[in-house]
């Protein structure tokens, strides 16, 4: 049934929009942007910040357009002096107790409060009075909470609760004392926070940011005793360009490699390579479980926030997890064993940098059972954003760089490896290999489109060599929780499940370039970035992990067979239940 149309006037212009539309969206439909701070489509419509106020004829006071539905005959003014003055005063009140050390703030020029204050010609000193002074939460290896820059928009709370069902942050106390925190004022490290970083991505200011490791990396590069190598995750090349002005969904692999090389690292490798390696290990593990009556469904283990989530919330289901280390950890493990041996370098002197679209990877590198060579597999993790900052700080003119290629031997990745960056990608990569192994048909299918797309939970059944393999794919931990609960109730007969923590997968990871609420609300960022992944994969000559010549060589020279004793020692890990409160 078609929605009933409502006629109204916005700034004197007559328009007709479907019933239920908010004033905010009605104005947008005729090219008028009403500013917002707290509003995030689908997850945070609370009318709290009062920036989106407009005049509605007959209304007692200004109304919050993000939650105010249109009605027949309504007359809206979005830009009167009364409206503009109100917004300006609200901004100046927000600024009155805001930490205004903007010059060195990591979010300077991507801060929504700064942008609006500038647009409204605000005087940050207009209101003086009591100032807030909160200690920083530095308890985790991945995130810094700085409540002195918080404007209490509650977007982080919504992301944590609605996207992830992790729900460890909220508003504590009341009035001037209101602050975002955890239950019983605990640090983030003492609550079941999973480190996904989605709160950072939605924060309008610098109140949430990753814990930077840039200085550690620069110190290692400057240390003549250290042999520094770096590698990038699939999704980094898809996001990085946005920090240098490229449109959303640009693959800047060549320039990215050139830029990292100019930082002074010895080699630039591709985590797509160890994604391929993961497929061989995980695919073999899956076939083993199917053939030997092992624990099913098997669930992927690439996403460290997901691993921490299951350890906190579903400890009984830990045996369902694949024992494979993530591609990041496999990269570090292989670098410090096989590669160090080959190059005659003491693993202690090798410094392995991993560049990730992810904040949880900073936690993952500190986990136990992640030290194949007796030293931690990974030394430093930089997010996509940190890489961009580092490139800028080093004076590297990103857009002027030539396109360069990754180094041997870990510079070859297949299209399947690249797919690890997007929801459904690990499943599709695994299917490309598993189906060929089971059927022996080299000309078997490459595209498994049923597991692609941004739906919450995707299901498919593939008949492989006479056996029906039932798979499920989801992203966003709120969706993962739904799947886990149905497994617990015994309602699922899946064989293989892919779970990525961040909605849409790593392309939308907590370490990716930050998009304003306006961009998030009005463009499908996840879908655009995903398209870049699939378009690249389509054009690649090498699209199946098991055909990766570098992976084949690694097994031949070093590991033997997938799931061999040596492979288990180096490439697999363990998990354990974690306490909640």
């Amino acid at each position, binding site marked *: 049934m078609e929605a009933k149309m409502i006629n109204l006037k916005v700034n004197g212009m007559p328009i007709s929009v479907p019933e239920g539309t908010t004033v905010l969206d009605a104005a947008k439909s005729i090219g008028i942007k009403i500013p917002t701070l707290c509003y995030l489509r689908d997850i945070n419509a609370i009318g709290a910040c009062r920036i989106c106020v407009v005049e509605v004829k007959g209304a007692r006071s200004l109304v919050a357009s993000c939650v105010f539905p249109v009605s027949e005959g309504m007359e809206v003014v979005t830009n009167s002096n009364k409206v503009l003055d109100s917004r300006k005063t609200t901004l100046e009140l927000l600024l009155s107790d805001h930490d205004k050390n903007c010059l060195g703030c990591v979010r300077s020029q991507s801060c929504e409060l700064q942008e609006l204050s500038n647009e409204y010609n605000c005087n940050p000193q207009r209101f003086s009075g009591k100032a*807030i*002074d*909160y200690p920083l939460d530095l308890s985790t290896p991945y995130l810094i909470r700085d409540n002195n820059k918080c404007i209490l928009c509650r977007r982080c709370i919504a992301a944590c*609760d609605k996207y992830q069902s992790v*729900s*460890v*942050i*909220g*508003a*504590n*106390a*009341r009035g001037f*004392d209101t*602050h975002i925190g*955890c*239950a*019983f*004022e605990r640090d983030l490290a003492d*609550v079941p926070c999973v480190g996904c970083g989605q709160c950072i991505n939605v924060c309008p200011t610098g109140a949430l940011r990753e814990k930077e490791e840039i200085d550690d990396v620069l110190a290692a590069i400057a240390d003549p005793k250290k042999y520094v190598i770096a590698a990038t995750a699939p999704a980094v090349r898809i996001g990085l360009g946005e920090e240098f002005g490229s449109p959303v969904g640009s693959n800047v692999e060549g320039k990215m490699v050139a830029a990292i090389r100019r930082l002074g690292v010895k080699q630039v490798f591709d985590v797509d390579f160890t994604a391929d390696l993961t497929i061989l290990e995980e695919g073999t593990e899956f076939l083993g479980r199917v053939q030997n009556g092992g624990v099913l469904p098997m669930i992927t283990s690439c996403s460290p926030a997901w691993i921490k989530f299951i350890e906190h919330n579903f400890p009984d289901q830990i045996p369902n997890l694949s024992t494979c280390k993530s591609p990041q950890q496999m990269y570090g493990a292989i670098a410090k064993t096989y590669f160090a041996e080959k190059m005659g370098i003491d693993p202690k002197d090798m410094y392995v940098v991993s560049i990730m679209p992810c904040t949880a990877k900073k936690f993952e590198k500190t986990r136990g059972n992640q030290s194949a060579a007796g030293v931690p597999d990974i030394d430093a993790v930089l997010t996509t954003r940190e890489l961009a900052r580092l490139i800028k700080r080093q004076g590297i003119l990103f857009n002027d760089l030539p396109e360069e290629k990754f180094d041997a031997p870990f510079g070859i990745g297949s299209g399947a490896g690249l797919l690890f960056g997007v929801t459904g990608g690990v499943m599709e990569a695994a299917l490309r290999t598993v189906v060929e192994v089971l059927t022996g048909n080299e000309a078997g299918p490459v595209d498994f489109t049923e597991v692609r797309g941004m739906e919450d939970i995707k299901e498919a059944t593939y008949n492989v060599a006479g056996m029906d393999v039932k798979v499920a794919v989801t992203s966003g931990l709120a969706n993962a929780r739904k799947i886990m609960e149905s497994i617990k109730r015994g309602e699922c007969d899946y064989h293989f499940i892919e779970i990525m923590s961040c909605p849409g997968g790593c392309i939308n990871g907590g370490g990716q370039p930050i998009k304003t609420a306006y961009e998030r609300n009005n463009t499908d960022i996840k879908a655009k970035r995903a398209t870049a992944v699939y378009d690249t994969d389509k054009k690649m000559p090498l699209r199946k992990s098991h055909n990766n010549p570098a992976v084949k060589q690694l097994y031949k020279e070093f590991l033997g067979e997938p799931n061999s004793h040596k492979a288990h020692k180096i490439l697999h890990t363990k998990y354990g239940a974690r306490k909640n*409160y």
Partner: protein
Amino acid sequence: MAEIKLTKVPFEGTAEQESKLRQELASIKTWEGNLMPALQAAQGIYGYLPIEVQKIVAEELVLPLEKIFGTVTFYSQFTLNPRGKFLVSVCLGTACYVKGAGDVFDASKKKLGISDGECTTDRKFSLVSTRCIGCCGLAPVMTVNEHVYGKLVADDVSGILDTYIKA
């Protein structure tokens, strides 16, 4: 920033209290808007809302603990601290304050080793600052349960509290 005061008093909840709470929550949780009545019921049983009690509420109502804690710290009707056997109230109303109640309050804090709103770990004393209690002629005034002590100086506090410590 006003600090949220978390108690250090060891939890002494009994199995009877827990089963009573779970029983009450069994019906409350079916209501729309169940959190406030649930917390009121819990505080009615335990007298305060420590983490052990909030965890029971979270579990029964299937809500995140932070959601419970945020609500508890928003409303002044809820307390995170138990009440001691003796409630020491120091009036910080205008008349008492100008006659030196601030020093009396500081002396009380020092003597008991707790701050405003807290309870000693032996559950003997709670300390609160209050506004005018209506006997300004006796300023500065302190009460211990129903006993009123007036025209105090800071040095009086130790002796008065000693009588309760020995009690």
